[in-house]
C-alpha cells in the first residue's frame, strides 16, 4: 500500500517540480545548439529537407506527379510523429542519461521523464511555427483548428506514461533501447506519417484502425492542418491514457526504488 502511495507521490512531485524542469529543459536546449551557426533552425532545416525529399519521391509514386498535393500531409506528418512516436528513442534512455543527476540529488523519476518530454515539446513547437510559415508561403496554409489545444495534451500525457513504462525496464536491460530504435523505425512506416491513410485498402487497413500511434498522430496532425479529428481518434487517445497510466503506476509501484541501482 505504501508503495502505491509512493508511486502516485512520484508522479505528483514530478509535476510540482515544473519550475525546475522548465528552466533546465530550456537551458539544455539552448546549450545543445551552442557554437552552431543555424542554432535551433537546424531542426527546421532537417524537417524541410525531409519533407521536400519525401514529397518529391512519393508525389511521383502516388501518381499525380504534383509534389504540392502531398506536401502538407508529409511535412505535418513528420513533425507530428516526432511527438507521437519519434521521442521513444529518447524516452528509453531517460534514466540512463539522467544517471549523473539521479546520483547527485533526490528527484522523482517522473521529473526526468517530464524534462525529456519538455525538451521534445520545445523542438516540436519551434518547428510547428516554422511549418505554419512555410505552408503559408507556399499558399498551402490553413487556419489551425482549436481542437489542437485538447489533442496535444492528450498526446503528451500518453507520451509521458509510455516513456515511464519504457524507460524503467530499459535501464535494467540494455537490449531494450536497441529494440526501441528498430521499432520506432518500423512504426514510422506502419503509421500514416508520409502516406495518405485513404489509399490503404483491404485487410491492410487494419494497421490504421488498430495502430494506437496512427490515432495519436491524427489527434494533432488534423488540427494542425485545420481539420477536426474524428471521434474514433479521441476515443483511442483517451482510452490509451487510462491504460498507459495504470500500467505506469503499477510499474512505479514495483520498480521505483530500484531504478537508481540499475544505472
Amino acid at each position: 500500500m505504501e508503495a502505491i502511495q509512493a508511486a502516485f507521490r512520484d508522479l505528483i512531485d514530478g509535476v510540482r517540480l515544473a519550475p525546475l524542469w522548465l528552466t533546465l529543459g530550456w537551458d539544455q536546449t539552448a546549450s545543445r545548439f551552442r557554437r552552431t551557426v543555424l542554432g535551433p533552425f537546424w531542426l527546421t532545416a532537417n524537417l524541410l529537407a525531409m519533407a521536400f525529399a519525401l514529397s518529391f519521391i512519393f508525389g511521383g509514386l502516388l501518381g499525380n506527379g504534383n509534389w504540392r498535393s502531398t506536401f502538407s500531409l508529409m511535412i505535418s506528418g513528420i513533425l507530428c510523429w516526432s511527438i507521437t512516436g519519434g521521442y521513444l528513442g529518447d524516452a528509453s534512455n531517460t534514466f540512463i542519461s539522467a544517471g549523473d543527476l539521479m546520483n547527485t540529488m533526490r528527484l522523482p523519476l517522473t521529473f526526468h521523464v517530464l524534462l525529456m518530454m519538455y525538451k521534445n515539446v520545445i523542438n516540436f513547437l519551434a518547428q510547428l511555427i516554422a511549418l505554419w510559415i512555410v505552408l503559408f508561403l507556399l499558399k498551402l496554409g490553413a487556419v489551425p483548428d482549436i481542437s489542437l489545444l485538447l489533442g496535444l495534451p492528450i498526446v503528451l500525457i500518453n507520451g509521458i506514461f509510455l516513456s515511464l513504462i519504457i524507460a524503467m525496464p530499459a535501464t535494467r536491460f540494455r537490449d531494450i533501447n536497441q529494440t526501441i530504435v528498430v521499432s520506432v523505425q518500423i512504426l514510422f512506416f506502419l503509421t500514416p506519417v508520409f502516406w495518405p491513410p485513404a489509399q490503404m485498402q483491404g485487410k491492410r487497413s487494419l494497421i490504421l484502425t488498430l495502430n494506437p500511434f496512427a490515432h495519436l498522430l491524427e489527434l494533432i496532425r488534423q488540427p494542425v492542418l485545420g481539420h477536426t479529428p474524428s471521434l474514433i481518434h479521441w476515443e483511442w487517445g483517451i482510452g490509451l491514457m487510462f491504460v498507459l497510466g495504470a500500467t505506469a503506476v503499477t510499474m512505479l509501484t514495483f520498480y521505483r526504488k530500484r531504478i537508481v541501482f540499475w544505472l
Partner: protein
Amino acid sequence: MSCSVRLDGVTLDYFIYSVKAQSLRNAVFNLAVGGNLYKSQGDVTVVRALENINIDLEEGDRLALVGHNGSGKTSLLKVIAGIYEPQKGRVEVKGKLTSMIAHGAGLDLDLSGLQNIRKMGAMRLLPKKVVESRIDSIVEFSELGDFVRLPVKTYSSGMMARLMFACATEFDADILVLDEWLGAGDAAFFQKASTRMQGFVDKAQIVVLGTHNFHLVQVACNKVIELAAGRAVFAGTTADWAAWRNQ
C-alpha cells in the same frame, strides 16, 4: 524552522549486475526455465552496503562519518540524501536538504563559475534574486577571484571544492550532506570551512560529513559514527570517539 535526521535500522543492499545479467536474452531464458524476470537470476551479486544503521540528529548537530574506503560512508550519505531508498528500516528527514556527495557533482564543466553558481541555485529552486544576492559572498568565500569568469573545466580540484562548499553553505539549507571532496582544499581553506561549520550551531543547521581527516572531525563535528563493512562500530560524541580510538 526545526530540522532533524532520524534513521531507524537502515539496511541497504546493492544489486550488482554483470554484463550477462543486463541482457534481456538471458532474462528471457531464465523466465523460460521458471526464473523471475527481476529476481534471482544468474550473475546478480548482492552486496550488503549498510546493516542496521541508527542515527538521531537534532538541530545544530554535526555528524562525521569515518571509516576505511568501502566501509559504507558514501552509501549512508546517499541514503540520508534520499538518493537511495533502503530495503529495510526507516529514514525520516525533516528540513530542506542540500547534498554534495560526489566531487564536482552538479557542476557543468563548460560553464563559468558564475554560471554554475546560478545553475546550482536554480537546482535548489531558489528565486533568481536570492541567488544574485548571494553571488558576492560565494565568490568571496571561495576566493576564486577572477577565475569565476572562467569555465569550471579550467579549475583545480581544490578550486572546485571551494566553489561547491561555498554554494552549499550560502544557499540556506537546514541539512547539509557533504562527502570527502572537501579534503581537496588546502590548509587555509580547511580552516575557513571548519570555522564556518562551527557557525552552523548558531543557525541550528545539521551537517553530515563523510571524511578521512581526523583533524576536521575533531574541530568541526560533535558526533561521530565509525563504519566498518557497513556496520556502525562506534557511535557517539567526538570526545568519546577520540578516547575509543586511543584504546
